[in-house]
């Protein structure tokens, strides 16, 4: 039918990301694997003459099955249909191919304004400098032997490589799943994440001494995993804002699994080897925040351990029990 308005058939991914777009100037478009179609799909699960796109009397678009064993479905649906009305936002599935049909009248979102973001690069450079500086400072504060350039350069370099690999992974994933690499966003998230990790690691050590709570170092891994989980979620969200709940749930599940594994490994290690737990890392005395005890009170508490030891005499060696848990007394 000459004079009909053009329509666009888009081959999309399962998640609706565009792969190809084809323009047709007719009211009926035949789609299939055979060469007598208007649009040829090389999907082996598509029939030679699978489906056709038609425009009905009201100028509305619809897909109709022609002849196929696999059939026609709407989106990811399970209900096979002979005819599906197309309104531009839904997709149809034939074989393993997803198609979306839109005509010229399809409304698009308003234009987004290009924002100048002058702070992005300084922010990123600042963050990277802060991170490397923090890393070097941490090495310096634990340096008790002859200072050597390699002691500083190689961990810093290894650290940079690790972060670069992490960022590369997320930009590649982002490019695959959302079509855009979003290097800046991923870099800011990754670098801030590592910075938070590093600061938390050192603070937990300092806090364990200052507050005389060994739990802060022995359970430091909980905080570390939560931080990793949170920043992983931020990376996922940077990819696209869609499915936020699902992503949060998946990250939470993974974090919990990691925590569970590490807790189990820790409990088993404590049950089968002699990990004497006390705050091993001393800090300068002026960082002490808790009060002091008298010797009498110290030895009274030491005496209190006896009951616990006597009770664990009868445990099976290597068994995980309540005493395997490293609590502060």
């Amino acid at each position, binding site marked *: 039918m000459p004079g009909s308005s053009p329509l666009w058939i888009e081959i999309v991914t399962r998640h609706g990301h565009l792969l190809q777009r084809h323009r047709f100037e007719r009211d009926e478009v035949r789609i299939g694997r055979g060469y007598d179609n208007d649009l040829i799909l090389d999907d082996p699960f598509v029939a030679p003459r699978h489906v056709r796109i038609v425009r009905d009397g009201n100028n509305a678009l619809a897909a109709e099955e022609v002849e196929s064993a696999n059939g026609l479905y709407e989106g990811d649906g399970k209900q096979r249909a002979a005819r599906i009305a197309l309104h531009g936002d839904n997709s149809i599935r034939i074989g393993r191919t997803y198609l979306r049909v839109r005509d010229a009248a399809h409304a698009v979102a308003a234009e987004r304004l290009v924002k100048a973001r002058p702070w992005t690069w300084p922010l990123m450079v600042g963050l990277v400098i802060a991170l490397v500086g923090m890393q070097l400072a941490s090495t310096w504060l634990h340096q008790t032997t002859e200072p050597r350039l390699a002691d500083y350069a190689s961990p810093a370099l290894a650290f940079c490589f690790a972060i670069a690999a992490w960022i590369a992974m997320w930009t590649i994933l982002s490019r695959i799943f959302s079509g855009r690499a979003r290097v800046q966003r991923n870099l800011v998230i990754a670098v801030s994440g590592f910075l938070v990790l590093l600061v938390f690691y050192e603070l937990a050590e300092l806090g364990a001494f200052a507050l005389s709570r060994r739990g802060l170092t022995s359970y430091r891994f909980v905080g570390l995993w939560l931080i990793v989980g949170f920043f992983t979620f931020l990376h996922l969200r940077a990819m696209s804002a869609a499915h936020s709940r699902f992503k949060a749930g998946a990250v939470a599940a993974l974090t919990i699994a990691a925590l569970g594994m590490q807790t189990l490994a820790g409990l088993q290690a404590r049950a089968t080897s002699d990990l004497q737990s006390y705050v091993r890392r001393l800090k300068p005395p002026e960082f002490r925040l808790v009060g002091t005890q008298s010797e009498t009170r110290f030895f009274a508490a*030491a005496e209190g*351990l006896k009951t616990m030891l006597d009770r664990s005499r009868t445990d099976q*060696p290597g068994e995980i029990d309540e005493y395997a848990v490293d609590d502060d007394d």
Partner: protein
Amino acid sequence: MTSVAARLCCLALGAALGLDAARAAPPENLSSVAKGVYAAARPRLLQIRTLLGSTERQSSIGSGFLVSADGSAITNYHVVSQYVLEPNTYRLEYTAPDGERGSLKLIAFDIANDLAIVQLDKAGQPYFEFEKRALADRMSRGERLYSMGNPLDVGFTIIEGTYNGKVERSYNDRIHFSGALNPGMSGGPAVSSGNRVVGVNVSKRMGGELMSFLVPARFAAQLLSRQHAPVALSPEAIRAEIGRQITQWQAGLYKTLSAQTLPARTFGPYQAPDSPAAWFSCWGRTNAEQVPKPRAMLQSTTCNTETSLFVAGDLSTGQLRVAHSYAKSVDLNDFQFAAFLSGQFRPSWFGWNRKRHTRTRCHEAFVDEQVKEAPPLRAVWCARAYRDFEGLYDVSLLAVTQDRANEALVTRLSMHGVSYDNALQLGKRFLAEIRFAR
């Protein structure tokens, strides 16, 4: 070059002297005594073998000797310890020098002196007497002793050596015997030229030459003189008995300690209790000669007791250790110095075995008596119990001074096989003695 020359010269001289001595003395003298001693001792000697019950193969060997007409023999506890601890897995057997074999019954054991009495399945054999002068502690240094046993399962052997008095730095009495004891001779007798028992072969010092040790005969005589019903060989009863003996032994040790004053030793601005008794063996160490020049100076002393008691192949107990490390920053900042100090801030105690010990529990705190004389401390008390022996623990007390950021004293006290009360008592005395030097 000169030192090599000097050494060669002395060796040559020694050889010349030896030749002179050989020419001067009738050659058969010494060896004929040994010949006589061995001939008389031969029917009284035993090899004691621990057999793995299921395979009838020996799993450990030692020696022993008859001491009464009813067939009682003395050996070391460590020779029969496998059988004592696992009577259902192992059994004991003796082999006499004439090749005769038979089974052995365990009568008694003494962990503190590493002795055991076993009984042969027959009576009426000749047996050894104890040397009266040894029981009365009137032996003279330099006296010739003859030690017998079956070293490394090669056959019964007699060894000549010298009585060299009591080991000075030992809480448990041991005779220093300058002779070549070898594994397998444990439990064999060391006799005077009159063929009377002076001591029981027990150990030798690795890394020394002819440094061997005997259990004095009086402990064997004492053990024998007590009336014994054969040991009930249920694992519970054995464990209770071992526990009882260690408890009794440590009670004596810690009572002796509590009667001593703790001498103070000065470390920079601090003083700390040091080597409480003569039977502590102390060593000092410094990092001053290290290259490159260390960035913090470290001075350490360690005092150990030679009080280790053998209980099982995987368990020794009874050790005591006092160790101090004084550190002072040369050019480390406060954080770096704290990191340096962390390397010293560890308990210095001996191995852990999950079969034998419970998990270690620790209490830690900042301790301050709020007095002018004593610095504030960070103190850690770690303890673990012996699974098999009720009332016995390993305890470690660890403390570091907290009054300065560039200088500190780390103090460690480790007590193995101690009752909790004794550990607390010594721990309290110890911590109270960490003070500023006057």
